[in-house]
């Protein structure tokens, strides 16, 4: 019994902890399987096996350290990434979110029907009858039942939602105008009982939407008001054998187009909705390149994303470094300056971004007020509503958010540069400026490059700032712009995928996110190579 060798408190604690974890996971597995979610159940099962193996045996010591982290990463990071990547191969957008059977069911149920041209208009008298046409006032079985007639041709019948019963003329009671008003009873039983006046009051709710049965295939009767009945037919019929819909009126045939919709075989652009999620391979990626309405906003957004990220890094670094150089001397109040200057970094960024949003308001914003105060006359810059100003605003706010970080790391780096280097330079006759340009700055650059690249990568995906400050706007939705002036790739993609109310295209968004992923990964890998972060692992 290796397990019990040297029983100590630590081992007992471990066993208790692992057992509790296994029990909880076991319960969850049972619950998920009971709920019919086999995939998640299997995931819990695998987790349990792994945990038991790793912590009760000595298979792998590093695994004992890694497993909790790996399980969390696998569930909430890796699985979603794989899901997103696989979705980029799908037609998955507004109108194509269901599975095919679900979509088919909805298409068949859909209320696409129309009055059949050239069919008769029947006279209608509403009433009750029961299932077997026995006692019509037997409330339990009574059904709304239409007495339908077309006296020029002597056609008379009773119709409910499910039954169609022809009647001989001799059982019909006519009024003085020759219109049927009642059906004579046979024996002691009523076969049909007309509506009382008050029952007409509830007519709209119960009967207006009922499809009464008619004796022609694919058709039904529908009440038009209280006294007229018309023949309707579904516009489309479905044939399961050929998996095709046929439009009854035009004769057009709609077949599975292999891309998630039934499309008109004559005119592929004419499709039935809803469609379903369908694998379309690389089509989303091809769209990125070939479809101008996708490509053009994407290129514009891509260029702005690069400009935004580069400008942000440069301005934040420049201001941070300037302040670091300024305060890298013993001057009075340096400690106070330092504490004030890191405030923007210490402040929860979400609050700062939102307050900046208010300050940049055209009418009541503090920024316009301040400028008015300085120039001595009222100004009304539309900071967040005018494309160029909005871009400037985003950069300005980001400068505010980020310069303290660069101030801090520049200070740290400056203090790490040996004094002797600059001293030696000044002995050799270099001015302060020369020493900075030739010695200090290149050294700083070398030290800070990985952080500059990390900052670039972070800002490349700085969703919070754009989303909370401008929402990617301003965008001219009337002109059909899908991308706003300040949209960066990630906010643009978010809009593509989750845009409420508009056209969501999750497949395309997934494709864009893979492009982003590859770009950022390439840039970061370059940075890592340069900074040799991974050297310690070789």
């Amino acid at each position, binding site marked *: 019994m290796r397990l019990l060798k040297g029983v100590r408190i*630590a081992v007992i604690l471990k066993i208790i902890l692992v057992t509790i974890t296994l029990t909880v996971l076991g319960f*969850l597995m049972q619950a*998920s399987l009971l*709920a019919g979610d086999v995939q998640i159940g299997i995931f819990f099962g695998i987790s349990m096996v792994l945990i038991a193996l790793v912590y009760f045996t000595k298979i792998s010591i590093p695994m*004992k*350290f*890694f497993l*909790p*982290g790996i399980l969390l*990463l696998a*569930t*909430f*990071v890796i699985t*979603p*990434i794989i*899901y*997103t990547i696989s979705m980029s191969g799908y037609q998955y957008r507004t109108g194509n979110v269901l599975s095919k059977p679900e979509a088919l069911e909805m298409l068949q149920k859909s209320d696409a029907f129309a009055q059949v041209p050239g069919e008769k208009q029947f006279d209608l008298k509403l009433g009750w009858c029961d299932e077997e046409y026995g006692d019509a006032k037997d409330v339990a079985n009574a059904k709304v039942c239409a007495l339908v007639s077309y006296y020029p041709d002597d056609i008379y019948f009773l119709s409910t939602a499910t039954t169609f019963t022809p009647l001989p003329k001799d059982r019909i009671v006519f009024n003085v105008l020759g219109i049927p008003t009642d059906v004579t009873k046979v024996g002691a039983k009523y076969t049909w009982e007309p509506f009382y006046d008050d029952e007409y009051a509830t007519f709209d709710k119960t009967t207006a939407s009922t499809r009464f049965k008619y004796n022609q295939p694919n058709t039904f009767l529908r009440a038009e008001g209280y006294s007229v009945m018309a023949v309707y037919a579904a516009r489309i019929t479905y044939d399961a054998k050929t998996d095709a819909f046929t439009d009854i009126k035009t004769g057009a045939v709609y077949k599975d187009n292999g891309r998630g919709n039934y499309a008109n075989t004559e005119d592929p652009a004419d499709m039935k909705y809803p469609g379903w999620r369908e694998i379309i391979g690389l089509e989303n990626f091809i769209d990125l390149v070939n479809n101008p309405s996708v490509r053009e906003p994407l290129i514009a957004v891509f260029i702005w994303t690069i400009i935004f990220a580069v400008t942000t890094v440069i301005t934040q670094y420049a201001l941070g470094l300037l*302040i670091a150089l*300024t*305060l890298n*001397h013993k*001057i009075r109040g340096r400690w106070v*300056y330092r504490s004030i*200057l890191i405030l*923007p*970094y*210490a402040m*929860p960024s*979400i609050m*700062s971004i*939102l*307050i900046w949003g208010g*300050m940049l*308001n055209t009418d009541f914003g*503090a920024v316009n*007020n*301040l400028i008015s105060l300085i120039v001595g006359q009222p100004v009304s810059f539309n900071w967040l509503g005018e494309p160029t100003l909005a871009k400037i605003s985003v950069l300005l706010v980001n400068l*505010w958010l980020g*310069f*303290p970080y660069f101030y801090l*790391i520049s200070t740290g780096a400056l203090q*790490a540069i040996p004094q002797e280097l600059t001293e030696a330079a000044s002995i050799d006759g270099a001015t302060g400026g020369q020493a900075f340009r030739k010695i200090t700055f290149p050294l700083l650059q070398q030290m*800070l490059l*990985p952080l500059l690249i990390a900052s670039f990568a972070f800002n490349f*995906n700085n*969703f*919070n700032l754009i989303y909370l400050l401008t929402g990617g706007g301003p965008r001219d939705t009337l002109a059909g712009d899908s991308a706003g002036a300040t949209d960066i790739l990630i906010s643009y993609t978010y809009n593509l*995928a989750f845009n409420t109310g508009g056209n969501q295209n*999750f497949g395309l*968004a*997934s494709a864009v*996110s893979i492009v982003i992923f590859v770009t*950022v*990964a390439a840039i*970061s890998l370059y940075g*890592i190579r340069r*900074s040799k*972060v*991974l050297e310690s*692992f070789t």
Partner: protein
Amino acid sequence: MIFVKWFTTKGWRHTVAWAACFFALFPLYMIVLTSFKKTTSLQVGSFLPTGFSLSNFDELLSNPLIPFYTWMSNSVVISLIVSVLSVFVGAASAFAFSRLRFKGKKGSIQLLLLIQMFPSVLALAAVYSIMERVQIFAPGLGLGTIGGLILVYLGGAMGVNIWLLKGFVDSIPIELDEAARVDGASPMQIYWRIFMPLASPVLAVVCLLTFIGIFNEYILAALFLTDPSQQTVAVGLRAFIGGQFETNWGPFAAGSLLTSLPIVILFLSLQKYIINGLTAGAVKG
């Protein structure tokens, strides 16, 4: 002449510092000014305070429709649990990366890096649908629950934290571990008896950074927690100003002030450690 000399040696430094401080303080001053105003608008007639009133705080704290305390405690509970657990779990992985030898170490750390670069906002839809399914059989852990959000945050914080912690752990001298190993200690014993006590200040700082990060998170919290009594302070406060009107800036500013103050104080008091951590990676090279 004396002034010119002073300016070229020290004065310009003060001028630059003053200008920078003005820039840094401007929005913060606006928050303070707005929160102590009588009206709830952000508009200022003058940049000098014209009166002092606690009505915005009063509105925020005593209006029964604004569960500010609940938001605050939700945010604190969520951030605290996530930061403590993720540092706890992350530290183990960071220790293994930094101190243990095993096959595929380089590959796995590169994979971890790569995973970090995926635009996580996009993975939202998948996370959402997973949690929707969990909701069906485990109502306390699924969509719309704080428990579910904590799990999702934990997963998301893992990658960053392992990286951050690895940087810190690398800076802890390895000699002590080695001495213990020579004395026959197992990796587990080294981890619990030697590494953890040594690393605890570092872990506390990473914990704080994670806390702030989670506290700042908006989009997941907004998507996950729709019931007002479950929302976090970031989501709740944003609702004040999310509409077309400027009317609720007062309570928003008051709320921001109350929310930010503890974090800013914590940050300033621990700044030495935080800055050391931030610059460790850079200055080492």
